[in-house]
């Protein structure tokens, strides 16, 4: 019993450690005072004024554009690549997986700098360079999420479908897709999370006027933060929370039915 209490307390402390800063930001987003440490009463004004703040809104739409474009493209390229890799011989698989691991394991700063060196040599920095950089570190997450699911699917079912006259696309859609769907989706989510939270790589590859929330905050942090920023991130966080809860709830209900 005592042991149970201790472990409960320990777990609570770790969660406090992880979520305390988020709680602080949520509270501050309702603080009717620009001061960071004093409570000036409850207000929702920051949630209104953030829509009038140009730099915040620009960074917000830029972040959305880059994150969504990169994640969708990465999901497509990554899923295709995973299917191809699975069909490959051992040696090819090993080489490709090795290369896939590079952006995951290499230091962010080195990845960022190496891409900057490449871009500076051949083109100008701008929106597209940030997009390419994000794609580069997003694709591996998709591949690593899809590949295990693919390995669980049965090859013979696919081949049987083909023998029975299905086109490859139809066979894929009917046989393979249902099995890998969840992997593709979690790969996509992973890519979104990583793109959303990235700073270092964006920092080195961004052009003038291209600011994601991370890079904008990096400069804004030094200048004294605007309370609108707390409001925006609280909102984003709440949306993520609700979305993920719905998904979790749905999938668990489905599992229950299946069981």
């Amino acid at each position: 019993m005592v042991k149970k209490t201790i472990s409960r307390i320990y777990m609570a402390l770790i969660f406090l450690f992880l979520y305390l800063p988020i709680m602080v930001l949520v509270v501050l987003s309702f603080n009717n005072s620009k001061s960071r440490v004093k409570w000036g009463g409850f207000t929702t004004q920051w949630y209104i004024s953030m829509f009038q703040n140009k730099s915040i809104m620009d960074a917000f739409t830029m972040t959305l554009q880059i994150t969504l474009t990169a994640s969708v493209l990465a999901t497509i390229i990554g899923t295709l690549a995973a299917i191809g890799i699975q069909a490959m011989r051992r040696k090819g698989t090993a080489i490709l997986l090795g290369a896939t691991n590079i952006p995951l394991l290499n230091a962010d700063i080195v990845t960022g700098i190496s891409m900057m060196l490449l871009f500076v040599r051949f083109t100008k920095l701008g929106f597209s360079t940030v997009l390419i950089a994000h794609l580069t570190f997003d694709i591996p997450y998709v591949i690593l999420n899809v590949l295990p699911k693919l390995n669980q699917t049965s090859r013979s079912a696919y081949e049987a479908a083909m023998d029975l006259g299905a086109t490859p696309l139809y066979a894929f859609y009917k046989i393979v897709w249902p099995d890998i769907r969840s992997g593709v989706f979690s790969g996509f989510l992973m890519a979104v999370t990583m793109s959303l939270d990235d700073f270092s790589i964006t920092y080195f590859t961004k052009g003038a006027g291209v600011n994601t929330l991370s890079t904008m905050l990096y400069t804004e942090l030094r200048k004294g933060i605007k309370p609108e920023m707390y409001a925006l991130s609280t909102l984003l966080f709440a949306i993520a929370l609700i979305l993920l809860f719905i998904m979790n709830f749905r999938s668990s209900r489905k599992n229950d039915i299946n069981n």
Partner: protein
Amino acid sequence: MNRFKREFLTGPYIVWIIGFIVLPILMIVYYGVTDSSNSFTLANIIAIAEPIHMKALLLSLKLALVCTVICLLLSYPLAMILNSMKFKHQNFIVFIFVLPMWMNFMLRILAWQLLLSNNGILNTVLETLHLPQFQFLNTPSAVVFGMVYDFLPFMILPLYNSMSKISADVIDAARDLGANQLQVFIKIIMPLTISGVLSGIIMVFVPALTSFVISNLLGGGKVLLIGNVIEQEFMQNMDWHMGSGLSIVLMIFVIASMAFMNSHNKDGEGTAVW
């Protein structure tokens, strides 16, 4: 014939790998071994031996090590507790630890600044309770704190993952054969989670070693890590050759620590992310 077609699907990705993974690294290597007149030199790589760079590298290694150890010590018991709670859906655990990432990293660090600064929230609370106040920000310890905060999930998740794979039967069997709790832990749980520990270590140690943002934000410009030196060479001193040379050294360190971990990882599943 059929097989050939499927392999084709990797086409776009192979182009991508060559264009945006291999080529950029070749660029770094090229800049690293040349000087401003484009002739070959190793000076930029040997520059790591200069006292300034050596100090920064040693400090980075030290802080990364401390951060990794703290993360491991915090995560191991937590992973055991989580594992004993038998959640219906493992995804839920992943979800809880990934969720903070949806609040922007910069803002979470800012929140710690607000909490920990000299006149910050925690000190104000301490003051009203008439307890001694502390000064913590802008020190190496603050940087380690920030790193632990940021990288802790990357230790917890692989640990929890490997722990949840241990079959309860194995532990029951050991119990039946008379092993006490400590013996079960040392003889069963530890060896079976070693691959999780190793991948956790890699996933914390490497980003901690190469971080430059956290030391900029929580170090008050006083803590110079090797990542900061490289960033300065690129963004302020305009010495891309030196910056690339030092990056190569950093890459060697990253590869070396991964090779070390892999050689100790017999299961061969160490580098799987989650």
